[in-house]
């Protein structure tokens, strides 16, 4: 049985739909990612699962409890980290941790072994005010606080937004470690590249789920030909490539452009037709989550 299961969840604010008929499940012990841009409804979904909001329609079950009826029970078994910095900046690292232990009515000693791998890294600074910590250290403290009561489910809303690349990567390492101790984690992120760190992902946009699967299977579903192209003048190449026969679409992709083609497309003809542009190259490319996301958005 899934530890999180939602059934046709919908929620709107003042007539604007934030979440539209969402149904999905998260397995026990999974590291599940909600991938999508701002406005995809990720935060609303977290607030529903954390029992902070009531759904307009549909229902959801977390750790065997219904989010509407048994919300008090759910609150004891989830660890929730909202998108904003949710610690007290004027309290020290240690005071924050003590407060959260008191909040959940637990003794720090009981759960120390669970948070130790994370908390040990910030323990040398335990008398420093949380507001004076670096972004990465704040994250570690927030995660320690969310884990203090050994929750069955960890809900992390955009924990890596606004954090630099090094800390982000460290954070994902910590989540992988937590997976070892059997905790189920639902995490959201707007960064497509982070999807690869999850067991399974749901691609979300504008309140809907575009697709759910393992990252590998999601990219495997990209069943069109994909090339990456480049030239000395990238902007001219972009406009020219779109006019070539067999090109479904062409869009910037980092330093290169990605070109999605149908079966009529021939790379050699492509090069020869664009010989007036200097330095055109074309090579087959592996589809990424982002390519798939674009494809699903257009459907």
């Amino acid at each position, binding site marked *: 049985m899934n530890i999180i299961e939602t059934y046709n969840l919908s929620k709107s604010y003042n007539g604007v739909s934030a979440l539209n008929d969402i149904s999905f499940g998260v397995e026990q012990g999974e590291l599940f990612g909600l991938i999508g841009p701002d406005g995809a409804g990720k935060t609303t979904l977290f607030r529903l699962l954390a029992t902070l909001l009531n759904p307009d329609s549909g229902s959801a079950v977390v750790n065997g409890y219904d989010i509407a009826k048994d919300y008090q029970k759910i609150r004891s078994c989830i660890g929730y980290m909202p998108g904003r910095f949710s610690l007290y900046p004027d309290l020290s690292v240690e005071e924050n941790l003590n407060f959260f232990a008191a909040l959940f009515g637990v003794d720090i000693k009981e759960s120390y072994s669970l948070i130790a791998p994370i908390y040990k890294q910030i323990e040398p600074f335990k008398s420093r005010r949380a507001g004076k910590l670096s972004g990465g*250290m704040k994250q570690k403290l927030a995660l320690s606080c969310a884990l203090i009561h050994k929750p069955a489910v960890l809900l992390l809303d955009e924990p890596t937004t606004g954090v630099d690349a090094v800390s982000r990567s460290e954070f994902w390492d910590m989540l992988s470690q937590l997976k070892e101790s059997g905790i189920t984690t639902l995490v959201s992120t707007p960064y497509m590249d982070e999807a690869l760190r999850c067991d399974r992902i749901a691609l979300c946009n504008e309140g809907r789920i575009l697709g759910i699967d393992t990252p590998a299977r999601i990219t495997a579903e990209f069943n069109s030909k994909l090339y990456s192209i480049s030239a000395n003048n990238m902007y001219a190449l*972009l406009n020219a490539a779109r006019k070539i026969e067999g090109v479904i679409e062409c869009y910037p992709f980092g330093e290169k452009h990605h070109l999605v083609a149908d079966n009529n497309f021939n790379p050699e003809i492509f090069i020869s037709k664009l010989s007036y542009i200097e330095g055109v190259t074309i090579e087959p490319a592996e589809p990424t989550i982002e390519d798939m996301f*674009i494809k699903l958005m257009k459907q």
Partner: protein
Amino acid sequence: MRDIVISVHDLTKCFGSFTAVDNISFDVAKGEIFGFLGANGAGKTTAMRMLCGLSYPTSGRGTVAGYDIMREGEEIKRHIGYMSQKFSLYNDLTVWENMNLFAGIYGLSKEETKKRSEELLSQLNFLSERNTLVGSLPLGWKQKLAFVVATIHNPDVVFLDEPTGGVDPITRRQFWELIYKASERGTTIFVTTHYMDEAEYCSRVSIMVDGKICALDTPTRLKEKYSAKSMDEVFRTLARKAERGE
């Protein structure tokens, strides 16, 4: 050789005994899309403030759009545009009112304002939305609009601060197309960000660690040099050496 639009030599900024920006030098050519990367606290913001004429360097020299950053800060402000993800447009004003406001700030005449605004809106296929409140537009549209408003006075350089964070992949690409188009017309784009996927779109990037520029090249060559698959990896390799925090 192409025209140099931003030129910086041995630029240093100290706050007391703390050296926020430590002897940095680089040139940016006209029409280039220059990525200015660094972890939080690496000195990015301080360096950018000096380039925008908002603060004076402790030592070193530099020019932006041909004006000296030491003496001609006011001239620099007139020839650059700025857009940040956090603040860009007024939500309680309409598209047209926002454009008029920023055109007014940069001293465009009435006729110029009208001409430029219409030109920019038609470029975005946005003419029908001119009387819409900016607050009611979707995030992606706001970002695109913010960018064209930042270029309303035809600046030589546009500074972008994390321009596409949190935007969906399609809008993000439309945004980069706008940037490419602007760069094609000769506008220099200076992007500061700590999102490495934004860095991949730049023609050249510099990476700041502890106040110094420790790498400067095209993304391809940087990836080759550090045998990394992505800019993210390059950045992590370099930023791990950082000694100071935020």
